[in-house]
């Protein structure tokens, strides 16, 4: 075992070195080979680390960034898989690069975001001290199957870590159901009734019927999607009161939100330096997780106002005369939140949507019809032009046309270099909505033009 591990680590480092020489990320591939040489390697590397694991459909990367900032502010030594490589291979690479040749970690803590399906095999090996489940929405159904399958994957994953403290989204009936039959201690986070204006249950909801008895849920309030004050009139399954609770959102701005957070017996006004309601959830989850790891509440709270957001997630670039903002979208729930965020833009702007259908995006692009692009109609006075790009640009054009935007306003531009040059000459602010693999390419073209870190450096 020891000899195998040694050679696997050596190989992993070598492959990583070669990747970097070739100006590649080398975030997943070296770990994949290392695990082939030594299947027990991940377990070995994780043995002496105190691990905080983040999983769920939306918000993993941003939540992890918020948590990281708290650890950094506290001066703790930690490793994090920032590049977004969140399968066993990516975690292995990251841990190898932060360990000695014998597999002894050089850091005390690890903050690891973990793919929902990969978690099933990973958690049992890394034995996290704390597990955060951000939420569960329909996402890449061609890859994960139904959302309830994803839930089962996460349940099985946590069964491999019975000691872990769970931080669960109280407002998500799917996520919250993990507490029904797992023995782990739970810290709940969520947005309390009355904190944000309630809205009707959306036309498309990912959890309409009780996960326990299949009766239709009733809602006291809805924050967004299927999140909110759910309760089952038949079996009594209902939202649990949040331990880390957002009790008011006094201000939502283009660059962040002010929230009132109640936790640990204190109530305080907190700044979150990313906009939109989904980041309010990420913030509450991050505070729950960081305090569960034993850090002071105050450190967790201060981190929310000072962390650096993940690449492509509401990331601001000095591109174009009024700047550009890149907002990753990958499924209907996240996309709706971004469209809602655009409602707060009070000036004229240009929208760029880049749709790809590669493996990491999901090969089925039908989800764009589950997202409420109809929300753009209300903006069409200020939205001066829409550029569609990516492998499935023509599909995006049709979607936006049927959302009620004049087709004459929509232009197809598939060449990212040309697109970026065009944006650079724009007077109006530009909002970029790419899917995952489109984001990687578009971001590279943007960075090439105006500078910025490569994705593995951020």
């Amino acid at each position: 075992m020891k000899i195998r591990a040694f050679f696997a680590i050596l190989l992993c480092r070598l492959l990583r070195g070669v990747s970097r020489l070739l100006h590649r990320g080398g975030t997943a591939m070296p770990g994949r080979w290392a695990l082939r040489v030594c299947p027990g390697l991940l377990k070995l590397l994780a043995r002496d680390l105190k691990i905080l694991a983040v999983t769920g459909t939306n918000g993993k990367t941003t939540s992890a960034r918020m948590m990281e900032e708290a650890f950094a502010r506290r001066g703790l030594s930690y490793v994090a898989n920032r590049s977004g490589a969140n399968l066993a291979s990516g975690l292995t690479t990251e841990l190898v690069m932060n360990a000695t040749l014998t597999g002894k970690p050089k850091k005390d803590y690890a903050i690891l975001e973990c793919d929902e399906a990969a978690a099933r095999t990973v958690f049992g090996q890394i034995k996290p001290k704390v597990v955060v489940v951000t939420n569960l929405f329909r996402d890449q159904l061609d890859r994960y199957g139904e959302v309830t399958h994803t839930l089962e994957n996460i349940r099985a994953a946590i069964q491999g870590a019975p000691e872990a403290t769970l931080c669960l989204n109280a407002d998500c009936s799917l996520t919250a159901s993990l507490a029904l039959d797992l023995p782990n201690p739970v810290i709940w986070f969520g947005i309390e009734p009355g904190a944000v204006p309630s809205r009707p249950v959306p036309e498309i909801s990912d959890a309409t019927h009780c996960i326990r008895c299949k009766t239709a849920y009733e809602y006291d309030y809805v924050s967004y999607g299927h999140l909110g004050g759910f309760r089952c009139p038949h079996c009594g399954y209902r939202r649990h009161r949040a331990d880390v609770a957002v009790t008011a959102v006094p201000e939502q701005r283009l660059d962040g939100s002010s929230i009132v957070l109640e936790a640990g017996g204190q109530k305080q006004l907190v700044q979150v330096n990313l906009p939109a309601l989904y980041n309010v959830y990420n913030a509450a989850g991050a505070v729950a997780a960081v305090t569960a790891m034993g850090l002071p509440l105050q450190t967790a709270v201060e981190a929310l106002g000072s962390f650096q957001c993940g690449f492509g997630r509401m990331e601001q670039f000095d591109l174009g005369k009024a700047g550009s903002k890149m907002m990753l979208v990958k499924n209907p729930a996240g996309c709706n939140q971004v469209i809602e965020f655009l409602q707060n833009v009070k000036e004229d702007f240009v929208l760029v949507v880049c749709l790809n259908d590669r493996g990491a995006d999901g090969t089925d692009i039908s989800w764009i019809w589950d997202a409420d692009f109809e929300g753009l109609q209300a903006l069409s006075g200020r939205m001066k032009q829409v550029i569609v790009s990516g492998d499935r640009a023509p599909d995006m054009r049709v979607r936006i046309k049927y959302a009620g935007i004049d087709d004459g306003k929509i232009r197809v531009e598939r060449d990212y270099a040309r697109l970026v040059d065009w944006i650079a000459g724009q007077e109006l602010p530009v909002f970029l909505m790419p899917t995952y693999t489109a984001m990687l390419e578009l971001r590279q073209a943007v960075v090439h033009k105006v500078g910025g870190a490569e994705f593995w450096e951020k």
Partner: protein
Amino acid sequence: MELKICHMYPDVLNLYGDRGNMICLRQRLAWRGIETQITRLPIGSEARLSDFDLVFIGGGQDFEQQVLLEDLHRGKDREIRAAIEDGIPFLTICGGYQMLGHYYETYDGKRCDFIGAVDLYTVGSKTRMIGNYKFRCGEASGGSLVVGFENHSGKTWLGSGVQPLGTVLAGFGNNGEDKTEGVRYRNVFGTYSHGPLLPKNPELCDRILLTALERKYGKAELSPLDDAAEKAAHDEVAGRI
């Protein structure tokens, strides 16, 4: 002119962008100055299907299937059978399409009774049939080339009294074996095609709309629209597969 469209089970049969079909039907009518009245009929609600000019049923998850079947067998099954026999046009996708048949038999032999409105049945298989695909509609359905995205493990077999909607050119279709895709029976259009089906296949969309308008008004015509965007998206996918 006006069409009354019923969207059955939008609360649970709403996967894979199937509601895009409703958006498409409504817009293509609106662009021609024809009004649309859409009625959502979720589980547990009551309505007379004979009041509608077109019924749409999409596909869904396994999770809610049991709830759905209970609701169907509380009388909606009879309603649907009568409406179909009466010639009301139906567009049904994937799970909504299978549901019109006699039954679904799982891979390990468990049989689940459906409503038997159309002569077809479905048998579960181990492998999932998934991906972009294309088929050519039969003459009776306008003969257009349709592109879509299929994602099903059930293999559907048609009985003798019904026609397929089209012939598979690339992909699996009904069962991956006999090259048939979907079903035509009276004014029912059944298919496995998500994508969603209609926005990239405007010819088929107009065919269905015309069927509904002609049934209601005896004679109807649809003015041509500028389908450049739709055709570009259609042709690109067709060229890839």
